[in-house]
């Protein structure tokens, strides 16, 4: 009985060895001659996402007048240093578009008046219209080593947000937006038929 089992195992291993030799032979032959192999094997993975519905959670009427648009890109990284192994590191490149202008909600009562052919407009201070300006969908993961949790990625997002605000909300950019606001508002009201337009912008605190 024991002898039969050994013989059977020898046969199985022999067949597997022969199959492997044949596979190697055909692969080498096809590589050598440049012809497709009669035996091929490869793993395939799905790259595309599944199709799922989108849900509109809120619709809101707003009144935001944009005068300056700044597109920014920041590379933010974080690392955890280990004593006896390689450092964990995560480097992401964030993209954001900061929009500067006025929000009609900030306008005081009778902010737009007219006297004969003259339009008088008292605009609220120029501000960042929306603090949600980062597009995480366009974030590029530049380098990743180690396992990173949700908190680490949230921290990176908020650091990118702060860095962009600091870099873009400068005195010069606010002045640029104010100058453009004067030009554009004046042009619009002249188009509406006013001969003279007076624009006052409240200073940014």
């Amino acid at each position, binding site marked *: 009985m024991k002898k039969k089992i050994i013989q059977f195992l020898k046969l199985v291993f022999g067949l597997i060895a022969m199959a492997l030799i044949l596979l190697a032979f055909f692969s080498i032959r096809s590589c050598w001659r440049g012809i497709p192999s009669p035996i091929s094997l490869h793993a395939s*993975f799905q790259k595309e996402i599944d199709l799922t519905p989108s849900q509109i959670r809120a619709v809101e009427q707003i009144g935001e007048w944009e005068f300056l648009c700044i597109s920014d890109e920041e590379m933010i990284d974080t690392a955890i240093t280990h004593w006896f192994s390689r450092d964990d590191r995560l480097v992401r490149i964030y993209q954001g578009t900061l929009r500067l202008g006025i929000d009609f909600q900030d306008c005081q009562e009778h902010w*737009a008046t007219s006297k004969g052919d003259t339009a008088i407009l008292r605009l609220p201070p120029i501000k960042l219209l929306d603090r949600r300006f980062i597009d995480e969908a366009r974030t590029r993961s530049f380098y*990743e080593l180690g396992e990173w949790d949700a908190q680490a990625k949230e921290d990176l997002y908020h650091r990118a947000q702060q860095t962009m605000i600091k870099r873009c909300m400068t005195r010069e950019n606010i002045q640029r937006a104010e100058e453009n606001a004067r030009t554009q508002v004046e042009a619009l009201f002249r188009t509406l038929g006013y001969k003279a337009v007076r624009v006052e912008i409240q200073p940014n605190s």
Partner: protein
Amino acid sequence: MKRILPLLAMLILMACSGHKKGEADSQAKKDSINLVLRISRQNRLYTAEYQVHKIVTHDDLLHLKGSILGFEYDQKISLGDRKVAIPIDVTLKSYVDFANFTERNVERSGDFIHITLPDPRIVITASKVDHEGIRQYTSLFRSNYSDSELTDFTRQGVESILEQIPQMGILTTARESAAQTLIPLLTEMGYDEDHIVITFREDLDASKRHEIYDNEGSVIKL
């Protein structure tokens, strides 16, 4: 032994000097580099905002595919599955661009004013991943999804929202909101509400994405 001890001490010192300031076992280092900054002057009136939520899912099945002597085969390996669900929130805004607004857009007759506004356009102004809400299920023989893979799925998810814009009825709301924003402004200027007419071009085809979607100002390019 006398020779080994100083060598060991040196090794330990070297290991310690490689670690910044000799703090705890691990510490976070942070840095940031600015890459691009582009500034452009605008004259846009944003009139409506939409918050869109989507759960992007990806089901990664491992398949072994190939052929043996002309016979094709495709075998699903059940031990190689992994799945991920990524909740994302996208902010869409509709706006009217006054950059090309001219006297041809305005008709005045006595106390009456008729304004034909430029076509409203839609732009994605922000997208945010709910990192805490991401759920991953990985089989024993597969690695977790990398950060690069997750960002790629998020991008695909936002692009799929763009496909659904024509069905969302956003344009109608955008037009109504634009009128509701401008009418109070004109009444402040002295016009009677009944004497103000605001219209839009009627032949705008909402099914043509390139006509309503702002490719240039948006964070997602078509």
